[in-house]
């Protein structure tokens, strides 16, 4: 029986049993003897200086071991570069407990360490702090005048700044048959994974550290700890096999890691620091952004001019940027363009990549503006997209490596029943409710970076593959096991994928929808090298039937190497290992993007979202009753986990459009809804029929797997599709997200 390919199969998650039985251990779940508990104290002012912290009173509490502040912290690394992690934007990274300066509301200012969690929490809650307060600015809208160009740095490479103006935008816009101009306002959002950020630092007998951390990058955290605390990397082991959601929040080492490690080193004890839900609002967020679009088209619907400007928040110490305004011209090849992206530094913490950073922000403005254009031209919104369809990326003057977006439109519209839509706003009803249909396009770049993978053939003839990458719930473990199994023609149960440990071969942070392509390519590279090695060693075995046989003449399956010309001839992997008189046969290889091939193409995943809303005008309630997202993302390795990724993205889209925002009170410079009762995300009752279509898309350019990432593409098209559906239902255009019932009344 020949090997049936496992890639492409809807395999259930390999770690499923651990997750449904409670056996899966997350960063705060490790039982460590003599563990101490740390609780962080945060600043209650927004800007100024700490004059005095009364640590004596709380040190007297029975069970309190130590209180760390800027006054008694150990001496640490000096240079900004030593604090810069893999995802650090240009600027000076925040240093916890550096000095008495307060830069933002909620800044960590002390760590109380105690024998029990309750004592640490109690002591932290009664600590008296005296501050000198200074004037601060936290409101983007009223500080828009301070907008300036972002500083450039390493991050600019992955997040290019807007293209220069093209053609004569002013004239083209002014003279066009149809013009739309609109402002879009987005509030701050916080990632809020359900798992609280936690670090358990185990102080080993030899002074080495074993660190269980909630992160999207084990090596990122290992390097950070080594650099900041002056430790040798090999003495710092970061382990994160289970991560309870992250959505970007774990791309940078967060302050609980710093606190936990600092306390462990100082006290020579194991220390756990877990943040509380309020503290989950104190270390990075999607930045508030204000956008202005000016789109124009000729009378036939051809888009002629695209203008898109964004002003976004950043902190005073780092220039965090996103790709917000670069997308429209990738989709719609207008000859006249004008794009701008500026930052306003405010007295807040640095923003941080949050699922589909920039993309979901920009696409809301772009696809809502396209909808407006469609109404002005009296062209169906879907037809308008098709009129402007292109397989060529004019922004980079090169074709797409593959682009089956047209199929997304066609199949999505068909399944959704788009043709039943009557174009007039307020023309569709169900009972006393208004019904609206809306659609929008999504795009997200398909990236690949470097990763290394080790592949080991064991004495039992089983394959072990390892990488330092995490699995934040995306399905990495399952998908990598599938890819590895196919490389050697093995069954799933004969393959183990080891991951989530900094001591394993190099992996980047898990983000940007590039994990499958990046680590998957490395798995394939290691698989190829291992096949070659095994065949060579098999040929060298005494009396081998595979002597001088090339790889073309054999297949790898049934746990061995089989001669194609005589399928009865098989040399088992375990016999090859045994003949070597070694315990295992192994290889370590790097997955490298084929830059020469890639540079001639733009690589991107695409989607089309179709949404039905029901609006009760009397109550102002809005429900997304039905949504379909059709996705073109190359080769789908696991349709089951991939579907879940898209569904998750769609729920995030519903959340962004209708639920979540972090509300600030700018008189205090403070977030006001720092808990899950007031930071609204959809509950089960808010989510109705969702469906996903993966259209077939072949791509032999993007990478060896032909795969494009799917972590973000399910999200980007949803908010504009929902806003457009609400317009269709009500005749009212809302450009401020989230859209709340009070806006409707």
């Amino acid at each position, binding site marked *: 029986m020949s090997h049936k390919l496992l890639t492409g199969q809807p395999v259930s998650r390999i770690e499923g049993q651990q997750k449904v039985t*409670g056996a899966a251990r*997350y960063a705060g779940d490790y039982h460590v003897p003599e563990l101490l508990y740390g609780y962080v104290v945060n600043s209650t002012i927004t800007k100024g200086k700490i004059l005095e912290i009364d640590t004596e009173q709380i040190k007297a509490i029975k069970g309190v071991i130590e209180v760390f502040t800027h006054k008694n912290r150990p001496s640490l690394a000096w240079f900004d570069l030593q604090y810069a992690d893999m995802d650090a934007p240009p600027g000076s990274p925040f240093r916890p407990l550096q000095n008495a300066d307060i830069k933002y509301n909620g800044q960590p200012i002390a760590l109380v360490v105690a024998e029990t969690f309750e004592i640490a929490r109690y002591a932290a809650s009664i600590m008296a702090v005296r501050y*000198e307060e200074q004037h601060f600015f936290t409101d983007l809208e009223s500080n828009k005048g301070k907008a300036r160009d972002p500083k450039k740095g390493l991050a600019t490479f992955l997040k290019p700044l807007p293209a220069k103006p093209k053609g004569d935008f002013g004239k083209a816009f002014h003279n066009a048959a149809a013009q739309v101009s609109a402002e879009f306002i987005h509030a701050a959002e916080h990632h809020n*994974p359900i798992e609280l950020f936690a670090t358990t630092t185990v102080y080993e007998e030899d002074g080495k550290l074993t660190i269980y951390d909630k992160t999207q990058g084990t090596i990122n955290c290992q390097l950070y700890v080594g650099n900041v605390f002056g430790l040798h990397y090999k003495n710092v082991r970061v382990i994160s096999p289970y991560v*309870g959601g992250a959505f970007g929040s774990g791309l940078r080492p967060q302050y609980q890691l710093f606190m936990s490690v600092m306390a462990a080193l100082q006290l020579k004890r194991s220390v756990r620091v877990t943040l509380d*839900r309020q503290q989950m609002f104190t270390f990075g967020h999607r930045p508030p952004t204000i956008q202005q679009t000016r789109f124009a088209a000729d009378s036939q619907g051809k888009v002629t001019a695209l203008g898109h400007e964004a002003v976004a928040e950043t902190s005073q110490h780092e220039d965090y940027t996103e790709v917000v305004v670069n997308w429209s011209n990738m989709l719609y090849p207008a000859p006249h363009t004008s794009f701008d992206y500026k930052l306003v530094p405010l007295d807040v913490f640095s923003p941080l990549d949050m699922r589909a950073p920039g993309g979901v922000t920009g696409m809301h403005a772009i696809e809502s503006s396209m909808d407006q254009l469609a109404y002005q031209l009296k062209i169906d919104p879907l037809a308008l997209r098709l009129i402007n369809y292109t397989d060529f990326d004019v922004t980079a003057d090169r074709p797409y490596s593959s682009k089956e977006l047209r199929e997304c439109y066609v199949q999505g519209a068909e399944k959704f029943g788009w043709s039943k839509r009557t174009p007039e706003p307020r023309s569709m009803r169900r009972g006393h409710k208004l019904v609206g249909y809306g659609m929008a396009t999504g795009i997200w770049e398909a990236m690949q970076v470097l990763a290394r993978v080790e592949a080991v053939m064991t004495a039992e003839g089983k394959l072990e593959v390892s990488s330092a990458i995490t699995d934040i719930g995306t399905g990495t473990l399952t998908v990598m096991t599938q890819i590895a199994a196919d490389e050697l023609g093995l069954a799933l149960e004969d393959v183990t994928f080891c991951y989530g440990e900094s001591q394993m071969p190099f992996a980047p942070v898990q983000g940007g929808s590039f994990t499958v392509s990046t680590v998957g390519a490395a798995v394939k590279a290691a698989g190829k090298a291992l096949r070659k090695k095994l065949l060579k060693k098999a040929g060298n075995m005494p009396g081998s039937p595979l002597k001088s046989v090339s790889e073309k003449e054999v297949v790898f399956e049934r746990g061995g190497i089989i001669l194609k010309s005589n399928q009865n001839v098989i040399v088992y992997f375990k016999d090859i290992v045994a003949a070597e008189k070694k315990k295992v046969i192994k290889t370590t290889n790097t997955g490298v993007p084929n830059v020469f091939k890639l540079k001639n193409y733009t690589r991107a995943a695409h989607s089309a979202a179709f949404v039905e809303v029901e609006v009760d005008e009397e109550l102002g309630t809005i429900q997304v009753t039905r949504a379909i997202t059709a996705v073109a993302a190359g080769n789908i390795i696991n349709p089951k986990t991939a579907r*879940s990724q898209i569904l998750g993205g769609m729920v995030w889209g519903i959340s962004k459009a209708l639920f979540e925002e972090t509300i600030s009170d700018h008189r205090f410079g403070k977030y006001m809804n720092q808990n899950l009762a007031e930071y609204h995300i959809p509950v*089960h009752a808010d989510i109705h029929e969702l469906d996903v279509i993966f259209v077939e898309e072949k791509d032999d350019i993007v990478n060896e797997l032909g795969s494009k990432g799917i972590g973000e593409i399910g999200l980007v098209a949803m908010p504009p599709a929902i806003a457009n559906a609400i317009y269709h239902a009500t005749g009212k255009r809302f450009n401020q997200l989230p859209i709340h019932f009070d806006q409707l009344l």
Partner: protein
Amino acid sequence: MQTVSTGLKPDVHLTNSRIISLHVNGVPRIADVAPWVSLLDALRDHLDLTGTKKGCDHGQCGACTVLCDGKRILSCLTLAVMKEGAEITTIEGIAQDDVLHPLQKAFIENDAFQCGYCTPGQICSAIGMLSEGKANSRAEVKELMSGNLCRCGANTNIIDAIMEVKNARL
């Protein structure tokens, strides 16, 4: 301008602990806990049953849901000392002799989780909800499961898994 965030004078009596006995997953267990220790923290830190998760510690997310005498409760809003002698079932006690509960199987089959962090609470809550007998339709199941948040957006798969088990029982 000077501002002060003050606390109160420490109360030194808060830390006195006492021995309580619980029946956890069918096994008698003893814990030495102070009165301010939540059932959630007692399970996690004192009994090493970390399958029950802390997502908010304020009764807002449902990740800490356990069954207490067969009813679903939020263990973060329950002090351990209040449950002296109670029968507690956590996610570690749902499978019997390594045979998964139908809901656990349905969660795996329907891919009703991604990161898995809210999953123990979802499963315990669903078991409690089904035994309450109030939910007759998918809409009612969704409503009665709405105390359990899922940030990965596995909502439709979670409800699919629960409906599959509910319908199989009818």
